[in-house]
């Protein structure tokens, strides 16, 4: 993975994190292919490790967006707001991947790429809400006002995460109950330990990938903010010179 910003490339941890994330994800993918096929799903079960891990990372990203936003409200540090926005953006990528991989799993399993099932619909809503979060940020210029509004939206929008997770219990649609069920304290994969291992390794790889992308995106956002501030200061200095000169 590239580490494009000079600010980032001076930091040795970020590229190392990216490399480790890529390696662990690759191991997870190889393990998915070595695991025996699922009794019900056959070789389509190879989609499960990436689909479930992608969905969990979308949850993590959106909960982190709320956490960073609330931390901003408590401290008024703009770096926390930048991390909240970065996390939301990465969450959007993960939720797109979750919808995409789910659609390609659904076609051979259910006979359709898309159904208006509660889980799928709430996932699409989650995507729409966080795209809206990013659009609203683009419309507010004042950094502190943008951070306050974003923190409020981020806190409300995070309610979508438990709603999405529990939707399969509340509405009993077509989507199966969670592969890792917190409610029932069991896993759908308990009968296939090799696939379970592949899932856990992929989840670890994706988590590191999230941390890598968060550091990278956060560093770029910081640089962007510094340049914007410099431009404003230059403009103010120019305006002051113009006013003072005879």
């Amino acid at each position: 993975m590239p580490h494009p910003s000079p600010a980032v490339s001076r930091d040795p941890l970020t590229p190392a994190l990216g490399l480790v994330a890529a390696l662990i994800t690759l191991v997870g993918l190889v393990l998915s292919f070595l695991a025996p096929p699922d009794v019900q799903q056959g070789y389509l079960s190879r989609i499960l490790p990436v689909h479930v891990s992608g969905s969990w990372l979308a949850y993590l990203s959106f909960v982190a967006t709320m956490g960073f936003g609330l931390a901003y409200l408590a401290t008024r540090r703009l770096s926390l707001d930048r991390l909240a926005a970065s996390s939301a953006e990465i969450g959007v990528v993960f939720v797109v991947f979750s919808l995409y991989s789910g659609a390609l799993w659904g076609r051979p399993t259910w006979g359709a790429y898309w159904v208006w099932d509660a889980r799928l619909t709430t996932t699409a809503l989650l995507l729409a809400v966080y795209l809206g979060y990013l659009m609203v940020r683009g419309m507010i210029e004042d950094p502190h006002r943008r951070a306050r509004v974003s923190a409020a939206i981020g806190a409300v929008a995070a309610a979508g995460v438990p709603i999405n997770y529990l939707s399969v219990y509340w509405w009993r649609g077509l989507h199966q109950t969670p592969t890792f069920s917190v409610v029932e304290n069991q896993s759908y994969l308990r009968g296939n330990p090799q696939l379970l291992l592949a899932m856990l390794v992929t989840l670890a790889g994706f988590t590191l990938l999230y941390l890598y992308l968060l550091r990278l995106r956060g560093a770029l956002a910081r640089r962007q903010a510094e340049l914007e501030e410099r431009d404003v200061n230059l403009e103010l200095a120019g305006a002051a010179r113009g006013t003072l000169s005879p």
Partner: protein
Amino acid sequence: MNDVFVWWVYGGGILLFAGYALRLLSLARKLDRHDR
């Protein structure tokens, strides 16, 4: 037959994350140009 879907998921996933990495790269280049 179903293997095709598995490969589409893996290929599409790689393209999606590579696309996001390219977006970050292009943002970094834009900032570099702006900095000069």
